[in-house]
């Protein structure tokens, strides 16, 4: 469970806070999407959760522990993190990439190898790909590897920052379906940032709509469509559904 309590963060040179008194609770097993335009704070929010950014005030409590009291590096090894450009390490094979966090956690070799095979199966990638290098894979394949790389140590929480932003529409749909399938198979919290309304509503059990550092609405897609909470949300829906 993630509790975000009155979190505030402002950068010196900006006219509005990046995170303006955010209050939310995310429960185990939920796939939450965070929707908003550039600069609304959605990326800052997830980076605050894994302490890549620190916050000016407020608390973030993960599984009843305030992350302030936890070492950042140790925390990040327990939270999956996927970014838009994927960031697969070009000098490592696919297997070595996937094994990154297990290696950092000093798992035994056998356990790591087994896990890598499991994960390749999860994304339908043949075993020969184990020793290939990222540049030999297509964009969609790279992104899928990026996803399982984040899942390697079986984290309870996975943060995804516009992971499918650079993918073509057809592949993106397949990846979305795959993500839903992978999420259904466990009790993990996925927090998925996107600027695409359709993606947000398709994937999210609940959607956080943000604008200028504030949460405009946080509810299920159906409720949001039926009862938009603010003019901003109304406008957002109007643009998509007219």
């Amino acid at each position: 469970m993630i509790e975000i309590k009155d979190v505030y963060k402002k950068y010196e040179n900006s006219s509005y806070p990046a995170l303006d008194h955010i209050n939310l609770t995310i429960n185990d097993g939920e796939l939450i999407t965070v929707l908003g335009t550039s600069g609304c704070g959605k990326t800052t929010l997830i980076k605050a959760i894994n302490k890549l950014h620190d916050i000016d005030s407020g608390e973030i409590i993960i599984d009843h522990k305030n992350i302030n009291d936890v070492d950042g590096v140790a925390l990040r090894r327990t939270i999956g993190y996927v970014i838009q450009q994927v960031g697969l390490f070009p000098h490592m094979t696919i297997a070595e990439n996937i094994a990154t966090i297990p290696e950092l956690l000093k798992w035994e070799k056998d356990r790591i190898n087994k896990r890598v095979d499991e994960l390749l199966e999860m994304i339908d990638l043949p075993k020969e790909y184990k020793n290939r290098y990222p540049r030999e894979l297509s964009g969609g394949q790279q992104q899928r590897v990026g996803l399982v790389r984040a899942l390697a140590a079986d984290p309870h929480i996975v943060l995804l920052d516009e992971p499918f932003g650079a993918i073509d529409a057809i592949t993106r749909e397949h990846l979305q379906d795959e993500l839903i399938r992978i999420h259904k198979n466990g009790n993990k919290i996925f927090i998925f940032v996107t600027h695409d309304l359709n993606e947000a509503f398709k994937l999210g059990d609940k959607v956080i709509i943000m604008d200028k550092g504030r949460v405009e609405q946080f509810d299920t897609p159906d409720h949001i469509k039926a009862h938009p909470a603010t003019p901003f949300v109304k406008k957002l829906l109007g643009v998509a559904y007219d």
Partner: protein
Amino acid sequence: MEYFTQYGGEYIRLVIEHLQISLLAIIVSIIIGIVLGIVATRFNKTEKILLFLASNLRIIPSLAVLIFLVPYLGTGLMPTLVALVLLGIPPVLLNTIKGINNVPEYVVEAALGMGYDKRTLFRKIVFPLALPVIFNGIQITTTEVIASTTLAAYIGAGGLGELIMSGVGLMRFDYLWIGGLSVSAISLMAMLMLTGIRRFLRKYEV
């Protein structure tokens, strides 16, 4: 050709001296260049100062540096090494800085987000990815130092420069040819060796 039969032993001595001086200067340049380069990327101000110094140091002719050092360091090996190292550091230094800065930010971000600590991040991700560019700097330094070691002869430190100087002094073109070609040959072989090593670095190219 008669040169070799007459002065064979002498020739080998000169070649070995040349190799020794070059190798020493190259290794020291590489170590200092890489260390300073790494330090530079950590501190903005230091980076700017070092970049400025490095770019300008290359412009000063090594011979001038050499002669300038003689009153302070005497003749022989010391001033030669200093002059050669001053020549050899900039390519490695500049390329270390460039190599490290060229590692894509998103790769670093992904690594940090996964829980790499700064030390392991540098050792396992940043440095390996910077290596191809750093190695290019090493190649440049190697060529320049091997060629410039001919200067060592000017202050009596030995090396194939002696052969070239004798050639000039005695108007013996065969000395000049042999001296010059030998230096080029050494340079070429060094380059071939380095290119061979480079092959192993292929996988680090982004």
